[in-house]
């Protein structure tokens, strides 16, 4: 197997491992639009990075992190429904990113590679960054696991019991920003939400407690990444969408399997 295939696989597995547990919280807390908004804002980070001649990874972390903080702050105001707010932020940052890219006439950008992932673009240092980022994300999530789970179930109850809700919330949003940045290269910006929520949704019916679901989501995400990459090489399809297709296939299979089990007399 070629080196770049192994690199792509390593990158994808690292991203999927972090995405499973974080995606479980996104599913539990009904925050899918939030992940989407952060993923879209990352394009602005890419554009700004290219404009100042930097590798886009750090600008993406910076922009997604700032957007996460801004969303956390804006959610405090009650004038707008959260989904409206997220829609505005997502569309605004995506559009801004595209406009900034259009101004960069001297820079030739493979936009599709950023939007949908490019397996050939993964360098050894990318792989290292993805695994370090994933390790940091998972370790941080582990530290806030109990309070985050408690506030996901009932925020007021968590606050009365002493959970610093705003702090935990902001920490979680920053973790999502980090995962967006590490998954960007291999998965692409647009399908990131899918990698976060579909494995978690598939894992639900096989889990009896939150931790089972998180671990299973990570495992299913890895399977989807491997299957998607394989398909991407065989049929020369974009890597991110291929992983999403594999992930959705798993989700549909699990639903059909459950249906069959229900029909079969016990």
């Amino acid at each position, binding site marked *: 197997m070629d080196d770049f295939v192994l690199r792509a696989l390593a990158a994808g597995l690292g991203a999927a491992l972090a995405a499973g547990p974080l995606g479980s919280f996104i599913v*539990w807390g009904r925050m899918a639009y939030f992940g989407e908004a952060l993923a879209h804002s990352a394009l602005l980070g890419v554009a700004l990075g290219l404009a100042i001649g930097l590798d886009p990874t750090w600008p993406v972390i910076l922009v997604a992190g700032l957007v996460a903080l801004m969303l956390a702050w804006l959610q405090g105001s009650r004038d707008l429904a959260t989904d409206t707010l997220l829609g505005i932020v997502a569309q605004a940052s995506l559009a801004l990113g595209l406009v900034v890219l259009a101004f960069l006439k001297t820079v030739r950008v493979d936009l599709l590679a950023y939007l949908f992932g490019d397996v050939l673009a993964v360098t050894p240092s990318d792989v290292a960054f993805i695994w370090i980022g994933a390790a940091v994300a998972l370790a941080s999530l582990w530290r806030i696991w109990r309070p985050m789970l*408690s506030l996901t*179930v*009932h925020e007021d*109850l968590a606050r*009365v019991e002493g959970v610093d809700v705003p702090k935990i919330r902001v920490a979680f949003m920053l973790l999502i920003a980090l995962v967006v940045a590490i998954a960007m290269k291999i998965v692409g910006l647009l399908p990131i939400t899918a990698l976060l929520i579909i494995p978690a949704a598939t894992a*639900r019916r096989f889990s*009896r*407690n939150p931790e089972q679901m998180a671990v299973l989501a990570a495992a299913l995400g890895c399977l989807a990444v491997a299957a998607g990459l394989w398909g991407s090489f065989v049929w020369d399809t974009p890597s991110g969408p291929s992983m999403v297709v594999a992930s959705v296939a798993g989700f549909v299979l699990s639903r059909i399997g459950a249906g069959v089990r229900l029909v079969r007399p016990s």
Partner: protein
Amino acid sequence: MNRDVEKNPPLLTAEGIDVRFGSRSVLAHVSLAVHRGEIVSLIGPNGAGKTTLVRVVLGLLAPARGRVATKPGLRIGYMPQALAVDEILPITAARFLALSGITDRSRIARALDLVGAARVAEGQLRDLSGGELRRVVLARAILRNPDLLVLDEPVQGVDVVGQSELYDLITGLRDRTGCGILMVSHDLHVVMATTDKVVCINHHVCCTGHPETVSRHPEYLALFGPYAAQRLALYTHGHDHRHDESGEVVPLAGADTHGHRHG
């Protein structure tokens, strides 16, 4: 029971609470105190601001004016009104209790046992009936050995038999631990036998005092109508028994503390 609890310094006092949502005044100059060993019921029609007041008392909502003072080091157990756990989150009742930060399995088992929910400890939260879920949420509230229990509509969605069992349970908790209890209900009748003091609010405090005094207060009658006063007689009775799981009548161990007369 002789109500000399008010001689002690209160566990919690709220004084002159004003809350506004935009231009709408939700609470105007509301005051309230809960003492050790005392059960205070907060009643009022829907939308009267009961839950808002509870959120102020718990420190979840800052009032526009007024202040809330608590005894230093006060431990509060809180039972929120509606706790619906999403279908998508797999979690057992015992694990739900552990989310409080108290993970000692024997303490969790004791709390569930105390509220009569030991059977459902390993059951998925979303599979529980309304009554079972209320008991589990109550178990989480008492898990931290609170000095003050704040219960928002503790019997909501529970059938009549289950309601009186839960109220007996709450009174028993007070008798055993001596904690103070602030309880929200939209219906005075069912809390008559349980409560020591009633605070009736409708954006302001309409009337406050002993349950039977409140039930005859003109402002109370204006709010709830004369029909409410008639139904009262049905509920003013001593609880000298409870029902076991098959519905059989079982004498209550501490019956003398329940069979008190009012007035």
